[in-house]
Structure formats: structure tokens, C-alpha cells
């Protein structure tokens, strides 16, 4: 699988504030790459730099293996995108908006019809877009991005403003795109649940820095599980272990240890046993994704 998007130490500074810091993003062919981060984390700024809408302060971007600066036209011709809020001409109808993009993309009429059908706007296509709901505008934006059936599709928060049924539809659509149309998809979101259900690979950005990049599985395994130990006398055990440099937290009937390797767990057990302290239970508690995000970003499941 070849690399579709790669950024190298991509940074963007507005005045004194660094919005994106040394981001090395890597998207491979056929992936659905979920770009996850809280509001204001730098997702949109990064995506804008990938599309050449904003100039990076430092670092560089390659798309389809080509430098963005020199091959912008080629890259954009193969890329569909929806950045931030949807773009539209409110005084024109949905179909006329599609025609504007069609002229610039130079694609046949059937692409327009197909894209409208996919986002289920064919019945509303003759209404003025100013009268559309936010969800319909969002669908129109997705249809515009899809129209040329590009190799790369970049959708920035595509489910904003959609109702639950709409979110489900778009999610199914995005999942189907790589196989059906041979697309690579980058989708950003601040919602963990949304990314979890669609993405094959994820990147987590927080305060402009990439905290993690890889598969969801890798993320789950990234953090060592919490080890819970129950002894005859937890208070005494805690004191004993503190002298040996272990700093457990009290968690109900248990002492909780973070970031212990197998050797350290064995050592801990030996210490307790050698001191004549009976160990009743040693348990491992896997962290769920939500917990991992919380630890990473200091915010809850809705990043």
C-alpha cells in the first residue's frame, strides 16, 4: 500500500500561537483515516495545509507522493474535499450549485446525478440552497466533494448538523467508499464514537501535536493495563511497597498500579509474599478507548 498523504514536521503559527506543531501525518492507500481531536486542536488547520488553502509556517506536505507546492493542480484534480462549514451559493438551487462544480471539474452529467443520489438530495435538487437545512447543506457539500469520484476524499467533520439517521447513512457511505470507488478517505471528527465505527486507522491531535497515529488496536494496546492488587491489609501493603518505590493508588478494595510490566508485577508479588503478606488477588484492568482518550487529552469521550 503506497502512502497517499504524508506531512513532514508540518507546523503552523498564527502570531505567537502555534496551532500545529511538527505533525507527521501518514495516510495509506485505501484507508479510512480518522483524524480525531478536540475543538481547536488543529485538525482543520492541518487539513487546510494539506489542500494548500493555508501555507505552512514550517514543514512540507506530499500527496500521491508529489510535493504540494509544485503539483497543486494535479493533486487538487484528484482530491475531493469538504472543509469546515459547507460552501454553497444560497441563491442558486442545489443542482445549479452542483453545475458550478461540474464546470470546474469538467465531469459528465451522470456524475452529478450519481453524487446527488448517493447523498439523497435528488428530490430537493431544484430548491434554493438558502432554504436547505444545515444537514442538507452538509450533504450537498459531500456531493460536491464526491462528484468527480476522486482518489482522495477529505471530509472535515462531515456529520456536523446531520440527524442520527443522516449520521448513520453518511457513516455507511464512507465505509463503502474505499471498496466501491477505490478511494482513500480522511475524515476528521471530535467525536470518538464516530471515528471508532468507521476508521481503519486513526490519528489523534491535541493542542497542535499528534499524540498517536496507527490502528485502533494499536491504540488499545498502547497503554499498559492497570494492575489491581488485593491483599489482607492494603494499608500495610501500601506502606511496604512505598518503601520499595511503588506508588499505588487506593481503588476500593484494591491497590491500583499504572504502567507496570510483567517483571515488575512478579517483583511486587514477591515483595509482599516475602514480607508475609497474603496476596488475595492480582487483576488486570484493560482501559477502554474512552479512558485512553481521556488520559491523552484530559477531556472526555466527546473530545
Amino acid at each position, binding site marked *: 500500500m503506497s502512502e497517499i498523504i504524508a506531512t513532514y514536521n508540518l507546523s503552523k503559527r498564527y502570531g505567537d500561537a502555534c496551532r500545529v506543531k511538527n505533525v507527521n501525518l501518514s495516510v495509506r492507500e485505501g484507508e479510512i483515516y480518522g483524524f480525531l481531536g478536540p475543538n481547536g486542536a488543529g485538525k482543520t488547520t492541518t487539513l487546510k495545509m494539506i489542500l494548500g*488553502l493555508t501555507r505552512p509556517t514550517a514543514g512540507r506536505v506530499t500527496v500521491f507522493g508529489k510535493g504540494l507546492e509544485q503539483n497543486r493542480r494535479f493533486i*487538487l*484534480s484528484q482530491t475531493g474535499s469538504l472543509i469546515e462549514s459547507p*460552501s454553497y451559493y444560497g441563491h442558486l438551487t442545489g443542482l*445549479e450549485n452542483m453545475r458550478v462544480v461540474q464546470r*470546474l471539474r469538467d465531469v459528465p452529467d451522470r456524475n452529478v446525478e450519481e453524487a446527488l443520489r448517493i447523498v439523497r438530495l435528488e428530490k430537493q435538487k431544484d430548491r434554493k440552497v438558502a432554504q436547505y437545512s444545515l444537514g442538507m447543506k452538509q450533504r450537498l457539500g459531500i456531493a*460536491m466533494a464526491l462528484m468527480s469520484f476522486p482518489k482522495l476524499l477529505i471530509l472535515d467533520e462531515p456529520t456536523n448538523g446531520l440527524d442520527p439517521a443522516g449520521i448513520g447513512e453518511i457513516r455507511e457511505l464512507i465505509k463503502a467508499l474505499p471498496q466501491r470507488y477505490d478511494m482513500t478517505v480522511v475524515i476528521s471528527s471530535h467525536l470518538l464514537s464516530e471515528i471508532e465505527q468507521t476508521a481503519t486507522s486513526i490519528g489523534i491531535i491535541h493542542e497542535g501535536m499528534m499524540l498517536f497515529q496507527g490502528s485502533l488496536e494499536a491504540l488499545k494496546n498502547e497503554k499498559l493495563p492497570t494492575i489491581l492488587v488485593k491483599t489482607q491489609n492494603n494499608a500495610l501493603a501500601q506502606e511496604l511497597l512505598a518503601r520499595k518505590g511503588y506508588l499505588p493508588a487506593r481503588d476500593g478494595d484494591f491497590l491500583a498500579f499504572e504502567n507496570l510490566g510483567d517483571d515488575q508485577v512478579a517483583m511486587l508479588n514477591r515483595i509482599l509474599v516475602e514480607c508475609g503478606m497474603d496476596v488475595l488477588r492480582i487483576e488486570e484492568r484493560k482501559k477502554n478507548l474512552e479512558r485512553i482518550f481521556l488520559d491523552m487529552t484530559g477531556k472526555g469521550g466527546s473530545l
Partner: protein
Amino acid sequence: MGLVGLELYKLRRKRLFLMVILFLAVEIGWAFSATSISISRNPGSAGWEALIAMMSSMNGLFLPILTAVCVSRICDMEHKGNTWKLLLTLSVRRGALYAAKYVTASLVVSLACLIQAVAIAGFGFMKGFEQPVPVLLLLRFLLGLVITNTGVIALQQWASMTAKNQAFALALGMVGGFVGVAADLFPQGIRRIFIWSYYTGLSPVTQSYASAHIQFVVRDMGSLLPVMVALTAVGMVVYLAGSVYVSRQET
């Protein structure tokens, strides 16, 4: 050229042309009724020169506002729906879009001027002016308008593109209308620095108050030519400055 076609396509349902026609109807109606009154009071002054001079001074008031409205309508649609970034991701360059909008605005305003020229010819014909239609004078009238528009459109476009709130650009147009109508009262040195003074300043016919009667004098083309060249250059500089300025902005 494709982009200009696209701009015209995007103007659908904007009722821009209807607005232009209504606006012109008011202006032309006013100019013609004023001319009719002066002819009925003073039949001797009936002539093409008076008609063209009247239309030129009306243009000082009306065209800056008409231009401001047209340019604003053409530029504002990109602000309203956040379509800048859409177009940029479709490989449209900012400079090319700026040029397309400039050409489109020029076409619309030039069309309005052409309608004026045709209306002048029609009115004189109806009134039974003795001399034949002065084609050369009308062409010089059009040339003066087109050259003045070059600069005014460039200025308005810069304002409409940079300030998202169109009230600024429209207010600028109104200031232009005021200057345009009052320009002839300013001393020449001051008049010259205002671009809106050239609606009358480049008119082929001027009014002279030398005697008790108003006299209409046809200006010598040779004296206007250097002004025309200079004004065209100023218009191009304003256009380029606006285009470069807008091209450097980021979304």
C-alpha cells in the same frame, strides 16, 4: 474565459440585470425629462450636445452607485456561502477569479453605458433633432465612461472583496456618487484626484457659463487623450494592487 462564463452563470436568480435596467430607467427618465423641459423653454438649445452633457452629469451621480451595487453583488456571493475555499480546492487561482469578476462587472456596467448611448440616440430621434445622430460623439461618450469605469470598478472590487461587510463598499459608492455630482464645483486641482469626477471630466461635451446662457462646448479629443491614458493607468494600478492584496490573503 470559462471563469467569466461561470461568473455569469452564478449571477442567475440574482436579478442583477433587472436591477440595472430599473436603475437606468430612473436615470434616463430623469435626464430626458430635464432635457425636455429645457428644450421647451428654450427651443434654440435643442441638440445632441445638451443631451449628452445632461446624461454625463447624471452619470456622476448614478454610475458610482450602480457600479458599487453591481460589483458588490458579484463579489458578495463568495463571502456569503464561504465559497472561496470551495473554488480554491477546485484549482481556481485567486488571481484568476479576481480577474473573472472584474471582467464580469465591466461587462455589466459597459452594457448599462451602451443602453444609455442607444437611449440618447432614440430620444433625439423621437424629438426630431435636426442634426443626424452624432455617432462619433456617442462613441467618445462611451469611451470616457468605459475608462472611468475601469478605475471605479477596480476600486469597488477591492473594497467588496476585502471587507466582507458590503456596507463599506456601498458607502464608498455613495461617496463616489456625491463626489461625482459635486465634482464640477471643486477647484480643478482637487477635482482631479477623485476618480468619480471623470464621468463629467471625460465627457465629450461640457457646459460653459461664459455668457448669461449655458453653452455646450464639444471638447477637443486631443486635450482629453492624456487624461484618458493616465486614468487607464491608474485603473490598472488599482486593479493590480487589489488583485495582489486579495491573492495574498488566506482562508
